[in-house]
């Protein structure tokens, strides 16, 4: 099993989720994160005090899938999250050793 971790632009979340459903992905977990990268943010000025917004709001998607599905999932994310503008984000792949569904105790690919 693989954990696909994708950092994307927030407004792309629904597109990504919809792109994954047809692949049989039944679950995923998202978090609000702040990203630092090539994309530069705005400057905020509060009565003369200037703060550069170097961290921009991003969404992190974590989805665990059977190893053989990984390629398709990566491709689907890459396509649906793409705008072509700087700051589109990254996809990382990690290996997952074990998985378990808490409700049933099922393990590994049964658990996804």
């Amino acid at each position: 099993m693989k954990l696909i971790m994708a950092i994307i632009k927030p407004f792309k979340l629904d597109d990504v989720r919809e792109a994954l459903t047809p692949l049989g992905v039944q679950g995923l977990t998202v978090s609000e994160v702040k990203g630092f990268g090539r994309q530069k943010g705005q400057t905020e000025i509060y009565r003369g005090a200037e703060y550069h917004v170097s961290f921009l709001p991003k969404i992190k998607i974590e989805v665990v899938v059977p190893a053989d599905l990984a390629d398709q999932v990566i491709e689907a994310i890459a396509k649906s999250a793409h705008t072509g503008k700087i700051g589109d984000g990254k996809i990382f792949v990690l290996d997952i050793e074990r998985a378990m569904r808490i409700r049933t105790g099922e393990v590994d690919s049964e658990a996804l």
Partner: protein
Amino acid sequence: MMRPRLGWGVGALLPALLMAMPAFAADDGPPKIDTGDTAWMLTSTALVLLMTVPGLALFYAGMVRKKNVLATLMQSFVITCLVTIVWAVAGYSLAFTNGNAYLGDMSRFMLHGIADHIAKGVDTGFILGAGTDGAAPQTVPETVYMMFQMTFAIITPALITGAFADRMKFSALVIFMTLWSLVVYSPIAHWVWAPTGWIAGLGVLDFAGGTVVHINAGIAGLVCALVLGKRVGYGSDNMAPFNLSYAVIGASLLWVGWFGFNAGSAVGANGRAGMAMAVTQIATAAAALGWMFAEWMTKGKPSVLGLISGAVAGLVAITPASGYVLPGSSIIIGVAAGVICFWTATSLKHMLGYDDSLDVFGVHCVGGIVGALLTGVFSYGPLSATDASPDGSPGGLDQLKIQAIGVATTLVYSGVMSFVLLMITKALVGLRVGEEEEREGLDLVLHGEQIF
């Protein structure tokens, strides 16, 4: 405000005491001020300002997405500032001096002459329409009358902002609202509330601004929504309100402040103000419950947004009626407004497909029309009776027709002129932020700020 054509204002507004001393009333000089009436009008002015900042600002800010909260608050606040200056410079003069039937004159340009009667710190009462047949002496100084009216001039354009929330340029807003205040608000206020105004002359009843404020702002909002177009992502993105608790605070302050709006429109602390306050409260509650139960039955759950939207619809609808109707009628007006506005905001809007972000048209225009027409049905004579017109203006088919003329005129004039001013603004600076900017949110893009 009272309907000056009949001149009943004199009898109604001079305190009872003076009536008992005819020597005073017969005086030719300006009327004396009454401290109780003045106290209530000073208070009402504060209450109506409270409606816009922070009331309306919060009501609207609570319904937008997080990235636009500050920009939305800013819109109401900057309009408060802009219209204050516009009103002091020319707006008040255009609206409330005699002029002709269509517009006041510039005799109060820069509030020139407003301090003429001040001597040794003491002021005299103000005579609205002095020197005309409809002259209506007031028991408050002109400064107070001007200030009270200013707060109405402020909230009306601020109401419009809900229609184009999340997408208008700030520079465009500054220009459009400044023009709108002068070109749309002041003339309509003159027509309806100045003794010389032509709509007042028809006998249209609009106690506290159903047409001048709500229909006017509501139709302008619809035009804005149509001209600017839908928000990016409308229909697909989740546009759930960021924090409805702000909207609840806002609606609550609107309710409380509306006592100044409606009961203050009696221009005194008198029986009419008391009745206006009572019917305002009752209609508001009835409308809120009307919307809530309609939603509960049709959608399965009563929502807090529905409840407060209904309350605002009720406040809008009772506005033109508030000094003319009795409690029983106010329940009917309230329920009608709640149910009809529920339908407009939740069904009609989708059927017609415009994106009036925060339902300015659905609540203010439609609620205002409901109220304006029902005022013509339920008006109770003794509330508006005077010596000159012992029957007052009782409701009936005749009055209903007159009311319809007031409604139609406002819809047409405000709709057309709003469109023209939008085109002018567009030519000058453009109306709408770019798509990327809209996605990022107005707070950061336009104002360089954000909330947590």
